[in-house]
């Protein structure tokens, strides 16, 4: 093997390593929504090996995904080369993965933010899209706690206001 070829191979190797270990789910889907790439994050959380999912339809593997809805989301990505975003407020999760912290966490499932991003081929067409799944469980739990605190606080505020307003009026 020439030095150049060896360098290329080394580079490819560490790039793959990066894709595998990054703490974000990466899935490459073609126009038929068949899986081309399934990284380490997806493997650990779903328990499915890349060899088990490659070439299979996302909808066949995960019946919890609403097919018509998801195709609709992906349409502008294929046709407009646009990115599409799905946030947890909209749908808490796309794929039912268990919470990363099963012991100290308060939620059963992982809240997910999802980006669908076009992958443009050498011919300039979008043949594949990349789905990135982010774990936002902490953010979601934090926001829910904050909201319930705000409700309690405003209730307390109202009670306090009811008691103090008459006193103010006497002074005026």
């Amino acid at each position, binding site marked *: 093997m020439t030095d150049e070829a060896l360098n290329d191979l080394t580079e490819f190797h560490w790039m793959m390593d990066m894709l595998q270990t990054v703490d974000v789910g990466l899935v490459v889907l073609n126009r038929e929504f068949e899986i081309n790439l399934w990284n380490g994050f997806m493997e650990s959380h779903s328990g499915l090996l890349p060899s088990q999912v490659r070439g299979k339809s996302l909808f066949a593997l995960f019946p919890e995904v609403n097919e018509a809805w998801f195709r*609709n*989301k992906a*349409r*502008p990505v294929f*046709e*407009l*080369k*646009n*990115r*599409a*975003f*799905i*946030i947890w*407020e*909209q749908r808490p999760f796309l794929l039912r993965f268990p919470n990363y912290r099963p012991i100290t966490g308060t939620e059963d499932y992982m809240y997910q*933010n999802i*980006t669908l991003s076009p992958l443009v081929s050498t011919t300039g067409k979008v043949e594949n899209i990349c789905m990135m799944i*982010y774990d936002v469980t902490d953010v979601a739990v934090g926001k829910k706690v904050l909201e319930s605190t705000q409700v309690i606080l405003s209730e307390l505020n109202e009670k306090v206001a009811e008691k103090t*307003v008459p006193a*103010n*009026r006497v*002074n*005026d």
Partner: protein
Amino acid sequence: MYSVLICDDSLVARKQVAKCLPEDWEVAVHFAKHGEEAIAALKEGKGQLLLLDLNMPVMDGYQVLETIQAQGLKTTVIVISGDIQPEAHERVKRLGALDFIEKPIKPATFEKLLVKHRITQNQQEQDKPELASLDPEIRDIYQEITNIAMGQAGDHLARILNVFVKLPIPNVNLIEASELHMMLQDIEDKDTVSGICQGFVGPGICGEALFILSDSSFNDVAKILNISEEVDDQMQLELLMDAANILIGTCLNGLASQLDMHFSQGHPEVLGQHRNITELININKTRWRRTLAIELSYGLEGYQVHCDLVLLVTEESMETMNNKLSHLLED
């Protein structure tokens, strides 16, 4: 500088009113303990705006208003009082007061009133006219590249949604935080709205896209996107996200390609549903003072859909953008 005179016999009340002045409003605040002090201060020119209590010793609020009228003193008066009888309300208006606020005063209501009577705006116009201006040549360029991006976006939309998009003329301005309120004020008057904001960054450029959809549009948006289910809150969020994804995405793609760069987009953030504009913007009000705003109002032919897309870019980013666009300026 604009001057505000707060007249109240209670120290607590004076402090409370002073605290309610908008934080980003540069004003000189003066105080008066009763009417006589207030009149003296007005004569010294301390008080383009007078915030006046009614019940006070020495000289009360009604007498102050009478004196102002009799002596022709130049000031704008807003009465702040706990006396909530309609008669009091009527009387102060007859005596020339601009408006009436009940005690205890709330910052939000107060600010709304200032915006409504264009008091904060006047101050900005008087003090810093240069801030609102943008080099006409630069404005032209931004308007042009947005037009091109819009053309592409409109074409994309028309194809994917099967609708005819009435292309808006982009409105390009350098604006301040408080001006954004006014810019969006007319939307608020008509309807409640829902909003999405999404950050974007490119090399040397960062900004935010603000997408605002009026609540009355949802039924028609559902029709366009072929949704047959009932449009409840959850569905509205879906529609809002879909519409925002398409509009923000196509517009940013169009701009990025002309600037020959690539923007990364953060995850969209829901600003709130069924809120009024002031509430939506208040959240981030203090973080920025001045930005470049590109405002686009969309309409769809044959549908009751009204949405606004506002692209806000930080002042620092403009340098990079101007450099990238400098070739358009060359002869």
